[in-house]
């Protein structure tokens, strides 16, 4: 149980409990609850980037990221969540793309907006935002094992490579089974699908 001196609450000491269960009621307050809300709002924005509420939702994403920035400052970067800043930026890019690109094709197929529906979706290069993220149109199946389909996740630029146990984000490799500290329920759910 490391004890660090906080700049914000000096001369007090900020207690950091490590290895605890994130679903603990107390953890919901400053860490798990805001993170959970941010991830769900991020998904909502990706699903409906064209809604009028998307712009205010982007502001809320920034407000949530600011909460974690404050947490990072208070703990001398002991708790650093670059993840929330990244999803806030990704959501902003998705909304910008939705505004600039023509409406999606009527067939609702998973592919490029306004393009030939029969054409193969382009291969996304690392760091590039896909032309369209159509979560609603993702047709899954009931078999958990065969739903280990990387098509959906490969649409997200941070997830360049996915195998049974790891995600590769840039130079970082994240274990799906021990990623509670960095990705919380987002990766837990991904682990459920992929494993």
């Amino acid at each position, binding site marked *: 149980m490391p004890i660090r001196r906080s700049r914000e609450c000096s001369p007090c000491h900020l207690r950091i409990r490590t290895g605890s269960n994130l679903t603990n009621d107390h953890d919901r307050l*400053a860490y*798990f609850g805001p993170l959970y809300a941010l991830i769900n709002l991020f*998904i909502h924005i990706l*699903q409906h980037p064209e809604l009028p509420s998307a712009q205010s939702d982007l502001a809320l994403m920034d407000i949530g990221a600011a909460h974690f920035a404050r947490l990072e400052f208070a703990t001398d970067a002991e708790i650093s969540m670059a993840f929330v800043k990244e999803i806030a930026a990704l959501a902003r890019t998705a909304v910008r793309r939705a505004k600039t690109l023509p409406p999606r094709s009527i067939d609702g197929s998973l592919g490029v907006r306004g393009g030939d529906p029969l054409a193969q979706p382009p291969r996304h290069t690392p760091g590039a935002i896909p032309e369209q993220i159509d979560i609603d149109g*993702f047709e899954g199946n009931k078999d958990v094992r065969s739903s280990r389909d990387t098509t959906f996740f490969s649409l997200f630029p941070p997830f360049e490579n996915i195998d049974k146990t790891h995600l590769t984000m840039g130079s970082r490799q994240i274990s799906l089974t021990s990623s509670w500290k960095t990705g919380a329920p987002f990766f837990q759910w991904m682990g459920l*699908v992929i494993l």
Partner: protein
Amino acid sequence: MLIKFAQLSSAVVSKLSSVRAFRQKPEVLVKTVCELDEQLHTLKSSVQPILTLDTPLDAVGSLPSGITLQQALYLHFAYYCTILDIHTALTLPWSRSILGLTRHHPLADQIKKSAGIVAKTSRIAILATKHVHIDANTPVS
């Protein structure tokens, strides 16, 4: 009250977050979601005379006497997390893919309703973070 929320949260996790839950038919899962939502609504109604949980927390005006801001926040976040636990079973894209739910599925109305609840709750929860006071006693992971 937190104990009741914890008990409900436990029930939600066991009924909706297990692999077995996702091997059920979508209709069964939707029914479970509706039942748990009803239980949460009942619990929320029991808190209603003291605290309104489904609106943004107003630290200045709405706190009843005898409840500190920290206690109110605990209750609010317990409520937010439980409602998200319940409804994200139908809204997360990977859950939908496991269940075989599409936008044209007969249960699309419930999915749309759950998506609306998740978005609204997420917004309120993020707004509530402005009241979270970070100090030496703030529990974090």
